[in-house]
């Protein structure tokens, strides 16, 4: 079986190498893409959309339909992770023992079979495997996370002018929350950002994107033709395309942020939402 796999892989690789010879040379000005498509984007993007970063304009405006379904793919990745991994509490071992830790004194209380302490600031619920988070890591991450999040917001908002945009910014925002979950524990992170909120955000991001497109359709222009938003935003159609890109990027950012946290929560706790990494 291994040999057959090796033969298939080598043959496919050889075919790919053979086919790659037919590609136009790197940065060849006579290649089909460089004769009419790239010049149009390079020359016209600024006057058509007033976005200096051509990549952002192509991604979110000219090829907006592609990016919408990329966002939908990310959304479905999060949902699939949830459906495959999440284990609801009822399937767990029945007599549940809960552990609570008194925050000020560090005393741990064990409660058996369904007894629980109402949520308060004095007690926090912990797992049997709980270890106190390291003070240096905890403090370091507390200092770092606000700046990471600020940078992520900058990446999303400044995507028009510099590399970046919804995907990258959303991933960095999600990474900051994951960093919080790693440096403390998963329960603390879930308390800050509940599963319900993550699910809602994940869907809301896709809804913002598709909703912007549908709004353009309602305003009697093509789907995702942001110049239709000129009347709503009270700007000229060219600036409206720039603003439309920003709205869409924010939608992408929210969806990616929620999906990254959702996948991490499900994988790191094997769907139980107890002890993370």
């Amino acid at each position, binding site marked *: 079986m291994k040999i057959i796999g090796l033969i298939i892989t080598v043959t496919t690789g050889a075919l790919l190498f053979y086919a790659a010879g037919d590609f136009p040379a790197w940065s060849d000005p006579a290649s089909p893409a460089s004769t009419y498509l790239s010049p149009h984007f390079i020359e016209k993007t600024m006057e058509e959309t007033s976005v200096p*970063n051509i*990549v*952002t304009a192509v*991604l979110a405006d000219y090829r907006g339909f592609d990016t919408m379904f990329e966002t939908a793919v990310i959304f479905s990745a999060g949902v699939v992770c949830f459906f495959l991994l999440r284990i609801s509490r009822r399937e767990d071992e029945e007599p549940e023992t809960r552990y609570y830790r008194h925050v000020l004194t560090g005393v741990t209380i064990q409660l058996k079979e369904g007894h629980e302490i109402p949520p308060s600031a004095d007690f926090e619920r912990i797992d049997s495997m709980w270890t106190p988070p390291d003070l240096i890591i905890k403090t370091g991450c507390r200092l770092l996370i606000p700046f990471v999040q600020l940078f992520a917001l900058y*990446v999303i908002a400044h995507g028009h002018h510099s*590399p*970046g*945009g919804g*995907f*990258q910014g959303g*991933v*960095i925002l*999600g*990474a900051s929350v*994951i960093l919080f979950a*790693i440096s403390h524990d998963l329960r603390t992170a879930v308390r800050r950002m509940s599963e319900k909120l993550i699910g809602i955000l994940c869907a809301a991001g896709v809804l913002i994107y598709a909703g912007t497109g549908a709004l353009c359709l309602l305003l009697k222009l093509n789907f995702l033709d942001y110049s239709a938003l000129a009347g709503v935003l009270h700007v000229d159609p060219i600036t409206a395309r720039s603003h439309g890109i920003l709205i869409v990027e924010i939608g992408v950012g929210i969806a990616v942020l929620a999906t*990254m946290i959702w*996948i*991490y929560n499900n*994988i*790191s706790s*094997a769907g139980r939402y107890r002890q*993370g*990494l």
Partner: protein
Amino acid sequence: MIWPIDLAILTLVVVAAISALMVKDLLGASVLFGSYSFMMCLLWSIMGAVDVAFTEASVGAGVSTVLFVAAVFRTTRRTRD
């Protein structure tokens, strides 16, 4: 494009990719895969595709390594099949 840097990074990409496949330890494989992603990120930025490089650095080298490590953390040393 500076060709010695380009060549060095291309070599490192191949080395990282093959060693990520070869290595027995799953944690080591995921870390090597992260380094592969980072080398790809450098390669993209050499080719001038800064947006792709940024995505590769944040998604490939950043979050997916964390997700791999989280998944490896949930495995056991010996298989239970």
